[in-house]
């Protein structure tokens, strides 16, 4: 049953990305073009998502456990460090260059275009390199 929820959450998220227009890199780049031809849509997507997720998070987390698992499983990392800022800077630069972040990039694989496929392969390589780098530095 929890497997079905994983699939279903992904499907709903993907539909949300299409309806909001965020699957289109042009909409994202339009949002980031604040000093040129600005398209504020992305801000409305964030507001829409937060209207639901913010209050519901605080209501649900008071429960003893989620409906299908024994415990809640989410990050409670509070470290504000160089990694957080450096990573966000790199991500912001990649986001501004390509107009894709991980969600829309993966969802747009549904369209079988060269653009998304190239980006996603490269993004996964990035994930893997960070793991590799961390395991080397931690081993020392």
């Amino acid at each position, binding site marked *: 049953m929890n497997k079905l929820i994983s699939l*279903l*959450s*992904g*499907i*709903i*998220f993907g*539909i*949300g990305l*299409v*309806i*909001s227009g965020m699957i*289109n*890199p042009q909409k994202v780049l339009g949002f*980031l073009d*604040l000093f*040129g031809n*600005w398209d504020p*849509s992305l801000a*409305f997507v964030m507001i*829409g*998502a*937060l209207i639901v*997720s*913010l209050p519901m*998070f605080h209501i649900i987390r008071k429960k003893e456990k989620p409906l299908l698992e024994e415990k*809640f499983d*989410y*990050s409670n*990392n*509070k470290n504000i460090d160089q990694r*957080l*800022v*450096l*990573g*966000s*800077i790199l*991500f912001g*630069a*990649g*986001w*501004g*260059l*390509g*107009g894709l*972040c*991980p969600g829309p990039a993966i969802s747009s694989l*549904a369209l079988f*275009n060269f*653009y998304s496929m*190239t*980006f*996603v392969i*490269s*993004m*996964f*390589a990035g*994930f*893997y*390199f*960070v793991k590799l780098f961390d395991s080397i530095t931690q081993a020392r």
Partner: protein
Amino acid sequence: MNIVNFTPISALIGGLIIGFAVLIFFLFNGRLIGISGIASNFINREEKRFDNFLFLSGLIIGPIIYKLFFNKEIDINISNSFILLIVAGLLVGFGTRISGGCTSGHGISGISRFSLRSIIATITFMIIGVITVLIKNYL
């Protein structure tokens, strides 16, 4: 600044749907959605690999269901050079893993739980995104 192509209604509705996906994943499975985390754990970790696979498959199936159900084409119109795409993908992969989240993980889930860490991340990647586009447009 000129405001162009603004689609507030569909953006808000799409956002509500995304929020609903976050809600059910948390209510039933106790996990908060962060796409970069789910995607990178899928390749880097054994734990919950099948769950992560199903979620990622859902992300791809969603637009296909939308196309069949509404009988509408989804247009993506963009042209970027191959090299630029590779660099952008690598930066997004590195960056989200180093900072521990992306637009969904920090921007939606993190802000929902009032995480200062996520608020700082979101402000940072948005400012850098704006600066990157600004520079790109002037080159």
